[in-house]
């Protein structure tokens, strides 16, 4: 058997995708012009699939901070925190994030993926029970493969499904660790966190909440769903990323647990990888300051979400269950999704296409992510373009035909 034979099915599916002319998994941004525009295939595209929720990748103050840091401390750290030492800025960043959440401790990781992978697989060990939402991100599933704990899935966003699984454990020994996400990355829906927390309290379970897509977007101070649901103190560990709202890369975990620092010598994805370079640490510290200083970015983001979500819904598109910075547009099957995606690219708009097995319940989606600095005109243009394509592809009912039919 050849090394790639086991991927034959996937290879075939991938070939089908590429017959459409573009390969959605190998899009090349020839030049990125701003948080909302880039040159792709030689032409200017509107970007509505970048997770760049506040548009901070081009914030002048964040860019300056990064440039200054490179001049002062060089391009990289060339080593890990435990083997090669921390820079003062790593420690300062950790203090600032802990402060932002009002938590005692923070640990910074090189990516958000590594934060989930290392933290979850370390916190739940042999004899423990790890309970995860069925629609969890790949980083959470991958952590499950690394842990010795028993892993059980519960139905997406369903506190009663979690409760049934906690109840079945009865008085079996072991820690119960529950993993939830603030905003789910495919459909943009939020967890009913307060209800989940009530269940977890009842059964004495620890709670980890991943705020990757909700940092900045939710809560009066942008701390995420934990803040907007009023349960910051009940979340034992909050994980997040610097690669979305904060416009760079990296992951973090905050907690009040007095023994938190033991994680620095137990979490392998922290110990055995190079630490964040000075430029990233500097731009993230500045981005956090911007998030605190400019709550209007959050207001603008939600106003844009409303424009896009309501606009598409009014045209008859089937969307994710609630408003969110991610707007998932349901399409009937993978080939329609890819065809739709390609037609949008031809029309100068870049979004993401998500098809099984990367999506929950085998759905096919166009995944749009909204940015605070999108203009209303850009989003209205997008709705118009999508409506046209939707009618051409038969995804939306053609209203002109219906009128003719009705007049007969």
């Amino acid at each position: 058997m050849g090394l790639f034979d086991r991927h034959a099915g996937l290879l075939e599916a991938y070939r089908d995708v590429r017959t459409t002319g573009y390969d959605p998994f190998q899009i090349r941004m020839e030049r990125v012009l701003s948080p909302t525009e880039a040159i792709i295939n030689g032409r200017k595209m509107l970007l509505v699939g970048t997770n760049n929720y506040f548009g901070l990748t081009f914030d002048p103050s964040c860019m300056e901070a990064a440039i200054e840091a490179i001049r002062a401390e060089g391009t990289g750290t060339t080593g890990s925190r435990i083997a090669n030492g921390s820079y003062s800025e790593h420690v300062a960043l950790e203090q600032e994030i802990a402060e932002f959440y009002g938590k005692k401790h923070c640990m910074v990781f090189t990516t958000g993926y590594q934060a989930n992978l290392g933290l979850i697989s370390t916190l739940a060990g042999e004899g423990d029970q790890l309970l995860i939402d069925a629609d969890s991100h790949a980083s959470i599933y991958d952590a499950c493969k690394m842990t010795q704990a028993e892993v059980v899935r519960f139905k997406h966003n369903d506190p009663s499904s979690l409760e049934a699984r906690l109840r079945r454990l009865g008085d079996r020994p072991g820690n119960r660790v529950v993993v939830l996400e603030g905003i789910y990355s495919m459909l943009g829906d939020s967890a009913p966190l307060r209800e989940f927390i009530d269940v977890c309290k009842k059964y004495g379970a620890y709670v980890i909440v991943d705020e990757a897509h909700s940092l900045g977007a939710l809560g009066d101070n942008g701390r995420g769903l934990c803040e907007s649901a009023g349960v910051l103190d009940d979340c034992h560990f909050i994980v997040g990323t610097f690669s979305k709202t904060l416009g760079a890369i990296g992951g973090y975990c905050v907690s009040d647990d007095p023994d938190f620092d033991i994680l620095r010598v137990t979490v392998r994805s922290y110990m055995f990888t190079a630490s964040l370079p000075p430029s990233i640490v500097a731009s993230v510290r500045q981005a956090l300051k911007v998030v605190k200083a400019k709550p209007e970015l959050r207001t603008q983001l939600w106003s844009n979400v409303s424009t896009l979500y309501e606009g598409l819904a009014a045209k008859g598109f089937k969307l994710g269950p609630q408003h969110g910075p991610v707007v998932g547009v349901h399409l009937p099957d993978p080939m329609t999704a890819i065809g739709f995606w390609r037609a949008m690219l031809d029309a100068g708009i870049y979004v993401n296409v998500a098809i099984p097995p990367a999506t929950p319940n085998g759905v096919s989606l166009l995944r749009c992510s909204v940015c605070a600095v999108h203009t209303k005109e850009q989003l209205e243009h997008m709705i118009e373009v999508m409506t046209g394509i939707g009618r051409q592809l038969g995804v939306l009912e053609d209203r002109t035909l219906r009128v003719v039919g009705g007049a007969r």
Partner: protein
Amino acid sequence: MIVETDGMTDTLERARVSGQSRGEVIREICRHLVPFQTGERPITGDTVIAKDLTIDSLAIMDMVMELEDHFDISIPMNVVAEIHTVDQLADTIQKLCARR
């Protein structure tokens, strides 16, 4: 935990006591698998779920979640990973029901 294929008499006895007959368990599993059937080939105890049916790994996990709620048991993901055939799945369900 690894699915045992021997000691069936004992397993069956315990399952009978807890009220889940082999037939009932197999029937319930098949009910969930029928939508993924390929061609005319019937689903039997020997059916290899991931190979003989058009079902991906995620759909298998979702089906397991439905079975968990039907029988009021939890089947950990690492146990699911060791299950290949309908018979093995039924064994696991009966064993967990007996332990309830």
